[in-house]
């Protein structure tokens, strides 16, 4: 192919002593030979030098403009005088200022007035939805449907009450949460009852929603003696003390005889975290009005 380049090569490799020219590229080899591997004596590509120079130039400019090199106790600050903490806080402030324009309205929990302001609610609902998804959906479900152990927010069955004021209170202080004003509710274990009694009681409780339960029965008496104080007469609930109505099939753990047996044996003590320290008062009010509207819109969501 092409003739060997008149390339002024450094000294040849002593042991082999000869060079050869690669017919494809026209370069000679360095004379090294490792297990048949040779290397071409290609001159150093100019573009690599340029690229090194350019990237180095970029680096020098960056070092001059930004904080870059440590100098003992301090560092070079850079001509732009940037500080990443300040920049982050500044951007948060900007976004927060936009949000406060309308969110401040929720500082005052006059829920009736807020709900009546259709423009405000149209503006706020998408934000409330994201607030709900980021903080509540993990337990209560993407659409508020709840799950085993977590209440459905779309139905009308509430343990503490579904009006916005009550929901806001629950949000602030939680249930069985490490908060001094938390709501406390516990289903005690009835493991001291005989297993046969528990089985009768479970069958009775499981039959309550369908109306097939015989109240004038040993199990009915057991219920009246042990359960009525919290769950209401014949399990009708409505005391808003954290104990569910047993007549509406909305018990969060399930109401089949097997699950009720489990509940009677070990008890239940569900937890709702307190959000008072994590969300602002306005955000909690926003969420409370959102959640109570989810309930209204999906009235009787679970039959």
């Amino acid at each position: 192919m092409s003739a060997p380049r008149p390339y002024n090569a450094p000294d040849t490799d002593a042991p082999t002593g000869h060079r050869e020219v690669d017919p494809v590229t026209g370069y000679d080899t360095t004379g090294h030979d490792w297990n048949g591997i040779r290397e071409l004596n290609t001159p150093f590509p100019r573009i690599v030098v340029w690229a090194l120079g350019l990237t180095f130039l970029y680096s020098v400019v960056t070092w001059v403009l930004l904080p870059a090199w440590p100098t003992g106790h301090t560092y070079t600050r850079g001509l732009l005088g940037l500080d990443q903490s300040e920049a982050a806080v500044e951007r948060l402030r900007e976004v927060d200022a936009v949000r406060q324009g309308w969110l401040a309205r929720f500082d005052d929990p006059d829920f009736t007035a807020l709900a009546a302001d259709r423009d405000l609610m149209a503006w706020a609902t998408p934000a409330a939805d994201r607030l709900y998804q980021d903080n509540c959906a993990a337990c209560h479900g993407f659409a508020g449907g709840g799950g085993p152990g977590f209440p459905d927010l779309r139905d009308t069955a509430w343990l503490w009450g579904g009006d916005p004021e009550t929901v806001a209170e629950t949000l602030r202080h939680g249930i069985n949460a490490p908060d001094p004003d938390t709501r406390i509710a516990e289903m005690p274990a009835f493991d001291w009852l005989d297993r046969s009694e528990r089985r009768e009681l479970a069958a009775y409780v499981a039959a309550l929603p369908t109306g097939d339960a015989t109240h004038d029965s040993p199990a009915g008496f057991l219920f009246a003696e042990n359960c009525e104080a919290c769950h209401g007469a014949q399990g009708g609930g409505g005391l808003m003390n954290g104990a569910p109505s047993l007549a509406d099939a909305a018990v969060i753990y399930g109401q089949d005889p097997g699950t009720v047996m489990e509940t009677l044996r070990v008890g239940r003590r569900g937890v709702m975290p307190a959000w008072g320290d994590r969300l602002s008062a306005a955000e909690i009010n926003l969420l409370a009005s959102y959640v109570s509207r989810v309930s209204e819109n999906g009235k009787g969501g679970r039959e």
Partner: protein
Amino acid sequence: MVGTLTRSERRIGIVLSVSLGLLGLGMAAGARHGVMAVHGMMALGLGLALIFHIGGALYDEPEPAPGRSGRYYDAPTRFGIGMTLLWAIVGMAAGVWVAALLYWPEATPPWPWTSFGRLRPVHTTGVIFGFGGNALIATSFHVLQRTSRARLADALSPWVVLIGYNLFCAWAVTGYLMGSTQSKEYAEAEWYADLWLVVVWSVYFTLYIRTLARRNEPHIYVANWYYLAFILVVAMLHVVNNLALPVSLGAADSFTIWSGVQDAMIQWWYGHNAVAFFLTAGFLGMLYYFLPVRSGRPIWSYRLSIVSFWGIVFFYIWVGSHHLHYTALPYWAQTLGMTFSVMLLVPSWASAGNAIATLNGAWHKVRDDATLRFMFVAAVFYGLSTFEGSFLAIRPVNSLSHYTDWTVGHVHAGTLGWVAMIVFGAIYTLVPQLAGRETMAWPRAIEWHFWSAVGGTLVYVIAMWNAGITQGLMWRTYDESGALSYSFIESVRTMAPYYLLRTLGGAMFLGGAVICALNCRATMRAAGGREDAADHPLSLHPAE
């Protein structure tokens, strides 16, 4: 293995095996229960198995023929390639499984050891250290001997390195399953496993230096520089990042001596240089040997290979801080990491360019030979992922990509496209040689492997690019009310199709690796003469 050792070496081997068994017994007795006791029993079992294996053949098997120092020592390489393929299947299968769990989280079985958090490091350690590490050690023994025209300095230490290293990997992976971890990414193994690796690595380094010192070539080939950088710097990174105080000598728990942002910086100095010196330098050594050998072409530029080597070694060590952009790490450290990452692109592309230009004059072979095509694709993906790496290291770009699946895609462009491809190219070049044959047993299967590997990589990487950019944009978009436009869970739900594609791509890649392992097994079973090669005259050292 035993047939290649002399009687006295077999005796030393038994002494070493007894020591290993005693070490295991000591660990088990000291810990009494828990992870460390199980690991002690594993070491004891391995020690006993080796005692029986060597002892049973102590006087029965004939000694190696005289004059073995005139031949290369390939038995350790053969064993190392076998372990490479075994770990490839274990590590990649774990990867496909955890990828599937991200799409079907409900499929997680109810046992603790099957949880995502325990299986994910099984995947990373299995592929990086099990697959990659064994491939590096096995090929380094081959390359070192051929380019030095010298036999390995002694017959026992290669086995100490390989068996000891695989014990480390097995300890690490079984420890994760039992819930034992230091919580440092890619350095999860506990303190005694780390100490054990230091011992193994010292033997490896000593063996490498001693063999280089016996070389019959006046110059040290650039591949050896890369392998040496890999061994030396990995030792330094491993020791510094794993400095920890054990809770007690009998427990698999420890506290790192680093704290706060220093801990984070040391971890990512380690983490990124594990990419640099484990997943790049060593595999560049592999590329610089197997690519010219397979293509029959001289390295395109000697000068470029030397400058690239020093450029890569010098720049890489600075760039770990780009993993900590916009964190508590001081801004100045982030700036330095960013600028050095940008400069690093030049020697990286110089290496990739040198490899591709080496193929000038051999493009017909790239077309016809799937083995060489593996290496060509590796060089292309090396160039691609180093460009991507430098790009993602720029702070504003990183603010979009950080914590997203783009990072996962970037890593897999490097590990699937570059690291695994060059390993498969090297394996298909080596295994026929080791088996004393001209070709692999099923030459057509190399094509199937090639296309499933390339297809799998592309599906994986493109899915993750889309996933990552989508996530990054969803997380940073505010609507006009000043509220985030998307909740986090919406961004998770959006990932579903990409996660499904990722699982598919990974499964294709795993399928190729299984074909490769079966092909290698068939090739080794149909082996011709197993006599060690001596393709160049080795100067005879006095008989050992």
